[in-house]
């Protein structure tokens, strides 16, 4: 299935249409609302891939909640190979005693999410769970508990709906398999 677009259209193969994404997010919004009804929920978006997903997810929810964002450095973005992961943008809210849901666009190796979970746990939230739109089990190195997930996908590279290649394609309304130019 192909769709015309202003980018290198032959490199993209649509995996999930806007309709499929919306339907899935509605389901997730309902499930999460039911689970967290009557609790103090803080939804934490992991920058930057989760932004579109987080916003649309929250619009499908029917309970009160707070939103915050967090960002961490990535191994692949550092200049040399001697550093360690650190938080580049921390939470503004205090999560101690709160029910925390981490919202990710995609979980693959579990390395960065594993670090986030360890870090946030030390702040003693009442509960700490993960919601991801996409899950790539085939790439997992560190087992991370994913409570809510939209789609399981194979070991492929995807863009769109917040996920980028070189900061591009985030604004696509669908999710597509992307074949890197050689």
């Amino acid at each position, binding site marked *: 299935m192909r769709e015309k677009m202003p980018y290198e259209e032959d490199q993209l193969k649509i995996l999930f249409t806007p309709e499929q994404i919306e339907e899935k997010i509605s389901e997730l919004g309902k499930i999460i609302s039911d689970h967290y009804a009557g609790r103090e929920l803080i939804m934490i978006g992991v920058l930057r891939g989760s932004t579109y997903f987080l916003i649309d997810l929250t619009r499908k929810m029917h309970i009160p909640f707070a939103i915050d964002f967090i960002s961490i450095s990535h191994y*692949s973005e550092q200049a040399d*190979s001697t550093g360690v992961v650190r938080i580049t943008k921390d939470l503004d809210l205090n999560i101690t005693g709160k029910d925390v849901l981490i919202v990710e666009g995609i979980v693959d190796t579990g390395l*960065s999410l594993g670090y986030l979970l360890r870090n946030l746990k030390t702040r003693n939230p009442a509960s700490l769970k993960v919601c991801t739109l996409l899950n790539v089990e085939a790439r997992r190195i*560190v087992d991370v508990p994913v409570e809510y997930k939209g789609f399981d996908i194979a070991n492929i590279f995807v863009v769109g709906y917040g996920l*980028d290649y070189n900061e591009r394609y985030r604004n696509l309304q669908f999710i597509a398999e992307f074949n890197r130019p050689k």
Partner: protein
Amino acid sequence: MGIITISREFGSGGENIARFVAEKTGFLLVNKDTIARGLTQYGIEKPLPDPENQIGKEQDSHFEQQYIEAIHDFIYDLAIRNNLVILGRGGSILFRDYPPALHVRIIAQFTRRVQRVMKAYNLASETAVKLVKEQDRDKSRYYRQVFDVNWNNLRLYDLLLSTDKMEFEDAADLVINAYRIHAEPREVKDGPGVGEIEERAVIPPADAEADQFMHPSEEEFAHMLDFYRIRWQYEPRTFFLEWDSEGNVVEAFSPDFYLPDQDLFIELTTQKPRQAWKKNRKIRRMKELYPHINVRLIDKRGFESLLKKHSIDQDEKEGEES
């Protein structure tokens, strides 16, 4: 491991004899079907209808070369665990240096072979003549291309049998008796003596600081684990996978990393999927033997997606987990 190799002229009845020998001895018959099936299990597809017949005809022989290597690895791997009757595929060359192996060549007069082929395939005589000549030429070419030897050099064989005046089953009985007389005094007691043990047991370094990585990708992977503050050990443990009849370890496997907090072994492979089947096989075998151990293979694709942003250049940057 017992090995009988059977090379045959087309129409000499070698296939029938090989089947009889396998049935009577209980040895595993390795013919082109066994090999194709085996390789398919490892995800290697046959490049051509029959490489033995096609090899050397194609200009682009790189993949053929790999396929041939895969065939050889596959046969050697089979031989570690089984007694084999190997039909064709250059078995006499593959096991030339393994003394207990018996190498048999089945021959018959040209006219006799043509008659058999006419009958077996219901062919006219001209077609049968053509076919027999073609098949012999292909075998000869295969030996020359793959092993650089002359197929018609009868010194490659221990036993030469003509089926001009002999029933196939009698020929098979002769082969079996010859094998018993030949192989028993030559049984190898200390390991397979042939075949490659790719990864021998590795003695783990006593000091973690002294880790000597076998491959740059392993060092890179270790850096990445360090970055995410994940504890790791490099090749801390060796798993034995195969033993010979004397109980000697003939195959072992040391996964590259152990992550103690995850209780997980990790093996990296930067080989292309076609070459990674050997590691896949080892990991499967390890899971069979040690079902309680968690082991995970990170393949070339997975590894590239981990490191790409870092190792190529800024243009290759991708923000998947950002």
